[in-house]
């Protein structure tokens, strides 16, 4: 579903934010993407989603190169960023209809999905209010609802749990599991290692722009009894 091949990102010909990163995610997987602050997680996700272009390497989504066929590739995924900064002078329902129109979601399906997700996240009653009146968590829930609306093949989230209350975090985790069981794929970054440990089929660890591990939790632990947190701290500690 997602193939990242030898991707690097260099800023101002100096700072290498991502260094020759390769990653493959198969259909139906949930992959957790972890790393210390400034390791290159967000840069990698921004390249995968087409927000920025890689300096070198290729990214394919469902077999489509995002550099060559951006529209085709973008039809296969939706994205929730780490900050809910959106154009917020419109009402919540305007935003959801906007996303549904761009992804060409038929009226009946959009109605059913909007009701399902926004009621689950308890923002349905706020949909007629302008987004700038929402709290951080409500905006985050609206973005997640919008991203789920087109029922994407690949669901990409950058730090999705930030700002969510425990109830909503639980719902989001259930939605992610459910999405994978129905054949969808989820790729998300997080600092909450317990979530990654409990939810993901595989874990990708990035440190200083390089992918230092990408495997199942069992293989990463290598039969040790250490927790993911202990392994993560060990792998990413500075020499």
């Amino acid at each position, binding site marked *: 579903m997602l193939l990242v091949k030898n991707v690097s990102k260099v800023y101002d010909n100096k700072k290498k934010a991502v260094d020759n990163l390769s990653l493959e995610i198969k259909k139906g997987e949930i992959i957790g993407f972890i790393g210390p602050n400034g390791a290159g997680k967000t840069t990698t996700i921004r390249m995968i989603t*087409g*927000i920025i272009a890689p300096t070198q390497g290729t990214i394919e989504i469902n077999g489509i190169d995002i550099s060559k066929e951006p*529209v085709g590739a*973008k039809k296969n995924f939706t994205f929730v960023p780490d900050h809910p900064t959106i154009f*917020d002078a419109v009402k919540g329902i305007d935003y959801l209809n906007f996303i549904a129109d761009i992804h060409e979601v038929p009226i009946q399906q959009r109605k059913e999905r909007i009701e399902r997700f926004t009621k689950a996240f308890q923002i349905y009653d706020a949909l007629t209010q302008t987004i700038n*009146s929402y709290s951080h968590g409500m905006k985050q829930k609206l973005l997640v609802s919008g991203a789920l609306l087109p029922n994407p093949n690949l669901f990409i989230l950058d730090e999705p749990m930030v700002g969510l209350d425990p109830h909503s975090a639980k719902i989001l985790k259930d939605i992610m599991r459910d999405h994978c069981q129905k054949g969808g794929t989820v790729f998300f970054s997080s600092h909450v290692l317990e979530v990654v440990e409990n939810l993901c089929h595989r874990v990708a660890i990035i440190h200083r722009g390089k992918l230092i591990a990408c495997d199942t939790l069992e293989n990463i632990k290598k039969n040790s009894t250490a927790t993911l947190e202990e392994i993560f701290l060990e792998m990413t500690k500075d020499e």
Partner: protein
Amino acid sequence: MNKFIALTKIQIKDFFSKYTQHLNVKNKFLGILTMLLPALLILPAIQLALTLYDSFSMIGYPELTITYIYIANVMLMLFAGIPFIISIFFYSKDLRLIATLPVKEDTIVFSKLASVYIYLLAIGCFFLGTSVVIYGTIDGVKVLSLILGIMALLISPLLPMIISTLIVLPFMSLIGRGRKRNMLVIVGNLVLIAIVIGVQLLMTRIQMQPDAINNLLSQEDGLLRLIGHKFPPSIWLTKMIQGSLLDGGLFILLNLAFIVVLKLFAKKLYSAALLKFNQEGSALIEKGKIYYKSRSIGIQIIKRHIAIITSNPTFLLNTVLTMFIPILMFVLTSLTGELSGDLFNSEALEPYIIYIYTIVVSTPAIMGSLSATAITREGKAFWETKVLPISARDNIKYRIYTTLIINFTGSIILGVAAAYYLPVNFTMILLAAAFCIATTLFFSTIDIAINIQRPLLNWSSPTAAVKNNLNIMLSLLLRVITGGIGFLLYKMMSSLGANTIIGVLSAFFIILYIVAIYIVYGIYERKFVDIAP
């Protein structure tokens, strides 16, 4: 005092660092050159000051150059200051942090005004500064006049800045309540600006009773008093530059008095206006019903871009003001009696009616550089359309369409209004429409190349996005250059009829539009993809 200095320093640093960041030029030499680009505006300012100086020297009162330019300068500062003050006080993102700091309310108000002062001082340097230098050097260097002139220049932004603040803050607290506050802010500020211009026109009109004129002219400095009688600080400033300590003292005292007044009211203004306005902004406003309606991708994107302008009072005010300046000026000059309908029906003006009409109709294209900030206006929300399944070409195209829709709407309104007052016929309307379409298409398309080249997405106040943005200067420079070429063409064709000339100029802009399409979609599409929010 230390807190005030610290807060002011950070505000000024932020102002300058935003400005240099907005330049977005990597090459150091080119960066300095680009920074100096707005300085080109000094050329028309010099020309204006020289013309005034020559005229007043001929009647023996060269110092009236300073009086005249100071009065105009104060009005310009009031005009420019009002939207800026609204932007930094009411729509700036840093107030939430500043409000939590352990500093007094007046410290916050004055530190916020520091960047307004710099902005207005820059305006003052162009006009008042130029006239002071011309007055102090042209007929031999007058050192004292120059020193006092520089002092006066440094003080000059205070009066209009404090007056604007004292008007705007309570005014905004009054109109900034309730559900339709953005609309009220727009309408209210348009009225406010109209009043400011109206007062200016009334003040500068030298239409007094003949007895009063004779009385004033019979006195020493009679002409100076005649021009400055409605605004005495202009007399004090002029005489200060001429070396009068008494007038200098009066001018400085007046400014100090206004600072004291603002200090006295700062606490009240802060709590009654700023906090209230921001508090109101977080209220939940419910309107309409949940709906499920399908629209085309193009309509959705264009709707979004139009909403970005209409939902932000600074953006909307800026758009409306730049487009409807002719109407505003016309209405005010008509109301104050400066302009009468008979003038347009005079024989002397008849050959120029088609040119006047064409320019009025094309004002939105010529004055409104909407495309030059089409990407910038989105700010940090720019990522949204980048991850959506729409091509970069369409993404650019819909932004241009948005500008076209807004500009053509403005042109139609202006066209209908102007046709009511000007004696135009069907051919004139057709030709003006052709010219308007050609210029709108060209400028709306080419301007977006400027924004793609220099996308400013991290702005802290909307003014930084749409006014204090070098993109606008570059866009205006482009208009000056194309206007210059157009003027040369006009001169070359002066033996031809007006209809032919406008036809040729329209064709000229259509050719430029074709070139602009190639530049934007051929060269800048790739650059658009590379814009990193």
